[in-house]
């Protein structure tokens, strides 16, 4: 196996040059056909779009507020569904992602016989998870950071077959609060699983958000976090009638624990080994 294992969706907003550089870097890593690389534009100014843009929206609302992770990736996933051929995995990347380590093809090949993996989190270069992974390429877990994700086509197929009327990501959660937790919840409750890999290490370069929020046309980072929390909690109350993120996290954990009960042989490759 090799180059044909993976598709990529990059979500760009007013960072055309950054996006083009990311595409170029990924192409170099992947020896990938550009057909497998989907760039979604999130209402960028014409001169700030990526030259690789595949699809996008530029209605007034999108120009004002962007698509954000959920709506943007949904658009990319819809575009991908119409491709003639899709790969077993799709990597979702916000445009400010930098690739620190890429050793994915062999890893994805080796993991293909693991049980029903829905999604794999690329480890962040500065995360405690990466330190815990050490020499291991993969461990199961349930509560990971937001940002880049590798999603398996089998989980996407499962979703679109069983829930044909709903988008993959919940667009009513506009800013994406607890998106990663909800992804793990949906995976485990449906008999899939989630893990993290050290074979793909990324870094979310917040400099763009910190120093160029006016250019990106988004709120400054502090304001964005405040809205993320406020709107996210409203979404959590509305959708699950759950009071706060703590309670939701424990609900997800229950589904993960159940998965380990059903697969006791996997407990040795969890992010925290509860054994003595």
């Amino acid at each position, binding site marked *: 196996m090799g180059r044909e294992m993976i598709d990529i969706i990059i979500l760009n907003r007013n960072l055309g040059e950054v996006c083009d550089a990311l595409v170029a870097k990924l192409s170099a890593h992947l020896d990938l056909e550009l057909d497998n690389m989907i760039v979604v534009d999130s209402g960028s100014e014409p001169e700030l779009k990526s030259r690789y843009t595949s699809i996008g929206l530029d209605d007034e609302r999108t120009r004002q507020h962007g698509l954000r992770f959920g709506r943007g990736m949904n658009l990319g996933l819809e575009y991908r569904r119409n491709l003639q051929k899709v790969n077993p995995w799709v990597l979702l990347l916000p445009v400010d992602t930098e690739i620190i380590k890429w050793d994915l093809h062999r890893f994805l090949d080796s993991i293909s016989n693991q049980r029903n993996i829905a999604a794999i989190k690329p480890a962040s270069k500065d*995360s*405690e998870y990466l330190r815990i992974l050490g020499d291991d390429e993969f461990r199961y877990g*349930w509560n990971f950071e937001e940002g880049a994700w590798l999603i398996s086509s089998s989980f996407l197929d499962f979703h679109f077959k069983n829930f044909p009327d709903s988008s993959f990501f919940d667009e009513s959660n506009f800013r994406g609060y607890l998106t990663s937790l909800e992804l793990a919840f949906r995976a485990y409750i449906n008999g899939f699983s989630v893990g993290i890999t050290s074979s793909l290490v990324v870094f979310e370069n917040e400099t763009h958000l910190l120093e160029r929020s006016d250019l990106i046309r988004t709120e400054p980072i502090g304001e964005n976090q405040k809205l*993320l929390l406020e709107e996210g909690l409203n979404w959590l109350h509305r959708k699950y009638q759950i009071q706060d993120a703590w309670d939701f*996290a424990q609900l997800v954990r229950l589904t993960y624990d159940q998965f380990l009960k059903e697969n006791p042989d996997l407990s040795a490759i969890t992010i925290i080994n*509860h054994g003595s």
Partner: protein
Amino acid sequence: MVGLSEHLKHQILSTRTTFMGIGPMSKTVTRVAIELANQYRFPISLIPSRRQVDAASLGGGYVENWTTYDFSRFVRSLDKGGFVLLSRDHSGPWQSGTNSEAKELTFPEAMDEVKQSLADDIANGFNLLHIDPCIGMQKGFSENDVEDMAVELISYCHSMNTQKDIVFEIGTDEQNSSPDEVEISKIRLDRMLHKLDKYKLPKPLFYVLQTGTKVAELRNVGSFDQPLSLKGSLPSTVLLPAILELCESRGVMLKEHNADYLSASALKWHRKFGIHGANVAPEFGVCETKAIEEILIELKMNSELERFMRITLEGGKWGKWLLPDSLVSDNDKFRIAGHYHFSNPEVIEIRCKAQMVGRDKGIDIEARIENAIHNSIDRYLKAFGYGQRND
């Protein structure tokens, strides 16, 4: 006969209560804490650091200028139901006391000093001793050396404690904004238990591990209570169950330090997770200072408030609580550190004057201060499960 260790363990586990350690930041805080323990008829511990209360021979502490003897007498005189455990917090070499601040002590001097302090604790009926030699790491000692210091101090206390009714808490690391990594904690805990076992010393009842709580300025800045995950940190919801499982598998109970200023959600999860014990201290001192500030403003005693603020700002005790590049105002520096100066004669005078001015206006100032502290402590006790038993 069931010893204190087994009795306390049974009470905590059978009711799934988070056992609360309360910093005796002032005489008022101490009195209110005792009242609440007797009201709930469930044990709490009062946890003076050596800076707050220490042996007379070491100069006493800044709280009420209490010596260990004074403090013990005061608590025992009010604790009618016997629900208050006297618990020494952070006892170890260089953990201050007046002498340590006056000059840099050598290692043998610092060990002699802390033994003097511990001997006085034992003589005055302390029940729980937290042995914490972690400052040794800052002095260039290795982790292994610091563990050996803990063993030496426990051995010393054990030999002094003829009734063998004192229980121990061990914590040899400093507060951190992220929880401890489980594998590392496992190695450290096993090493410590092995050393204690080798010398036939008692296993500690409590073991301090970082749960992601850290106090700075007027808030908790650790990862435990962040609505959005802190970059680089593992979420507490991932680590805490594993940390608890580790402690339980080794027969020790998890003690969380620096639980001040946690949100209602975070407090609620202490019982849900099953965190065995948690300490809160500076928040109650800050609560008292804020109550005094409000009263002085209400009574239009502006010059007195300014005097109290000046004493606090000049005292500089707020410094260690500030975050790097802090933009905290002078008003907040005052709120952070006002309690260090409650026993300053000028502050006592200001408080007495406020009491008299208040009395003329029909306001019981001290009752109002006590009420504020009561509510502040009770927020924790209720969340931790006090008052939930039906006996």
